[in-house]
């Protein structure tokens, strides 16, 4: 293993600390986590910013995401190409947002993106259906799913356009006791 100093330059580390909620040690730990996913792909020297991208299959195998029903969406939202393949920057971004230090507004923003399956900047009924099905592993009948989705839209849709905009979503989720 290389010396800690050779992975990133101090400026890089400082910049990462400015851009994420992590300390130096955590950034390095995350780097090693990232590298452990594919030691043959990721170089130990990041000072010249190699353009390394890890495929989604590797990311989804991480214990943090393995059991998450939304793992694919999470990876897609944070990946640069939208297919779930992450560079180190994206990787750090993802963990920064998901960390407990991130403010709720930021989390709400990304949560919105995650639940917005078809990327049309609204959570519409099809998105909601997908969410419910993922949450319950398709164990609800279509009728129940439809009902639940209708209820959600009825509750949270403030401007009444039949789908949830980011504002609707934030209004709703900021007040949720469970939203961390």
């Amino acid at each position, binding site marked *: 293993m290389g010396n800690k100093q050779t992975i990133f330059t101090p400026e890089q580390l400082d910049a990462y600390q400015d851009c994420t909620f992590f300390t130096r040690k955590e950034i390095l730990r995350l780097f090693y986590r990232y590298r452990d996913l594919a030691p043959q792909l990721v170089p130990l020297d990041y000072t010249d910013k190699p353009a390394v991208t890890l495929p989604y299959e590797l990311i989804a195998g991480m214990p943090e995401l393995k059991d998450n029903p939304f793992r694919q969406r999470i990876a897609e939202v944070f990946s640069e190409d939208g297919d779930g393949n992450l560079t180190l*920057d994206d990787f750090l971004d993802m963990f920064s947002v998901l960390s407990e230090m991130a403010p709720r507004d930021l989390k709400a923003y990304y949560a919105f993106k995650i639940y917005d399956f078809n990327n049309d900047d609204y959570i519409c009924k099809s998105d*909601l259906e997908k969410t419910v099905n993922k949450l319950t592993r398709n164990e609800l009948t279509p009728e129940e799913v439809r009902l639940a989705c209708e209820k959600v839209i009825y509750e949270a849709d403030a401007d*009444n356009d039949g789908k949830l905009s980011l504002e609707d979503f934030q209004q709703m989720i900021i*007040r949720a006791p469970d939203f961390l």
Partner: protein
Amino acid sequence: EKDKEDESKEENSSSQQNRASRRKSLQKKPGDGKKAGEEGSRQRERGKKAPTKDQKESENKERKTNKKGKEEENKQKKDRKNSTSSASSNSSDEESLSEEELAMLMEQVEQKKKLISTMRNKPWRMVKKLSVLREAQAFVEKFEGALGKGKGKKLYAYKMMMAKKWVKFKRDFDNFKTQCIPWEMKIKEVESHFGSSVASYFIFLRWMYGVNLVLFGLIFGLVIIPEVLMGMPYGSMPRKTVPRAEQATAMDFSVLWDFEGYIKYSALFYGYYNNQRTIGWLKYRLPMAYFMVGISVFGYSLMVVIRSMARNANESTADGDDDNFVFSWKMFTSWDYLIGNPETADNKFASITTSFKESIVDEQESNKDENIHLRRFLRVLANVLIICCLCGSGYLIYFVVKRSQTFSKMQNVGWYERNEVEIVMSLLGMFCPPLFETIAALENYHPRIGLKWQLGRIFALFLGNLYTFLLALMDDVNEKLAEEDVVKNITRWTLLGHHNSSVENGSTATPPPLDPADVPRGPCWETTVGIEFVRLTVSDILVTYITILVGDFIRACFVRFVNYCWCWDLEAGFPSYAEFDISGNVLGLVFNQGMIWMGSFYAPGLVGVNVLRLLTSMYFQCWAVMSSNVPHERVFKASKSNNFYMGLLLLILFLSLLPVAYTIMSLPPSFDCGPFSGKKRMYEVIQETIELDFPLFVAKIFSYVANPGLIIPAILLMVLAIYYLNAVAEAYQRANTELKKKMQMQREEEKNKRNNKASTNPMLQDLEDLLTPGTKSESHPKQAEDKKTESPTRTSPVGKHRKAAPLNGIPMTGGRGAAFTPPPHMFMRQPPTLGVWAPYPGQPRPRGHPPGPVLGRGRGQPRY
């Protein structure tokens, strides 16, 4: 592709935004970034030059302004089209311009700095964040030197440097601090297996460990160490010597185990301390220190608990009991993102499914009366049962305590009789919580609410037990006090007799002092109390550990290995594996802490025992939970606002403060042991110190302050202040609910209106749709999208435009603020749309998003 497009757009917008702001501040700065950079470097040169030639200040200034003038001209040439009029006006009064410019620049630099510090809150991609960060940093670097003028410049540069150093130091310190947090990985591991609720217990345990470490440091450093190092050595005086009668057995393990013998006469307990006013060459005032440490243990604990409560209260924005968003919250917040274990995930999926089904059923038949009646009946029944249990346990303890008093008068009692109270209390603590849990299953609450009920009940149980125990102890103390008077006389007579006998012998030399082991002793009730608490704590530790070992580990082993040759499936059937009992563990911890607080005044070593206990239990319980527990069947998340634990802790702290305060204020200390011996009351040590060590006027002031005439008005004032603040808080609360109601009404109204419109005049709707020009429908989605990506940052451009607008660290100003600023007028402006209930998925809806003036303000006009 879309993302890339997005990004380029963002990039574009941000550079444009920078450009706009720069143009505004420097008024005729060329739009191109490179040119700006050039200019910046020139400016920086100037900045560098200035401090070196400080003595030629005035000349320099002149030169500078000249230079500036030239530059101005240059710039003017470069973009004449941009701002000719302002430039000409500028050149007329150069002096004021440069100042103004500097001020603007300064403001801009400040803004950039703010941007840097809030960079992590922006929902941008890392690449963009990095580039913007670099840009901002470069900007700050460049222009920082140029700020300030004349003498102020050097100071400013210095200040900037110090600020930079400070930031760096703070960051390093934070790095260091996070490295110092122990058990982070352990807790994270537990968290990933069992969800955040179990982890919250361990976090609480860790917090408690920190608090206890501080208390231990206080007591150990200020009381125990000085007494051991500088006080009279062991065996030099009666209170520090084992009496003759006990010496034979003082080292036996069975005696030591009861904290008698040598342990009783060690620095672990109150009785060991001497009442000498000052000890050692430092003239350390030990009795005073003892008293002050005893008080500051409570003071520090109170402060810490209340501070963390306040912080939690600030963090929790949610009011929880908002019925508006049942399904939405279920949909979007039910997954615990910390789960990383397939079994837990399975349980979670199942619980989410059932909760969805439940609420759907509830929704479908919301007016199901008999069901509610049944549930109410069950809840009342459960409460009755639990109250019966509580009364029963209270009576049992009372009975046992009474019996133990008769036992204590007898000689030759067995081990069981001596420890009956502790055993019964531990057994009650072991068996009642599961019983309560079984009863609580009748009630069918949400697990989080159920947990609170459970906690409350166990709390009541423990509290009853503790106070019965205390009452028994008080009886004991009173008996000891009566006994003491007798012993006091005996001791005096013994000493006198010894003295007289030596005088009678006719020896002129001083008589050989009586051996300290032979002096008759008082019962020293303080040490007795201390020993009781230490014993209780130790037995509590043992019971906890044995429960874990037997109830969890042995059971898990049994289930795991006997399952191969058993009639039914042990893992799925009756014994199965244990779940981690959050409520019981939390309460155990809280009560243990209460005992520590109560006992630490009479047994300074108790906190050390507790630190050891917490340390071992961290490792032991982590191991136990990972090895032999299964995740909860209904996994639920701990809310961030876990003020409930803290509230319990505060209550216990208060309740444990009461008996200690009572004994300090109104019981006479023993005459022959402890730091306060010889005084009428313990608090007299303060009066003594003030009279002897402070100048006279301090004593006078103190006597005035202690006057009830002053204290009563002060208390009155405090009560009034509390009343006032409470009233204000209530008013806010009312306003809050009022606003909420208004919002709700507005929404309903809007909905109705929209429904009516959509149903009554679709023709008008169609017309309006036709009337919207194609160009508009093209530009709108872009704007909407732009708004979406930029909306969390929209405060910053606003701040740039308005000089005084404060940029608060977090964009989108907190949850509460966002919740309170509904822009209803925004909704009003929105043109009615057709088919509210049947949107076309995937198809971009140009008019769907209101191009509200409020949101668009930061942006200005569309920029194409």
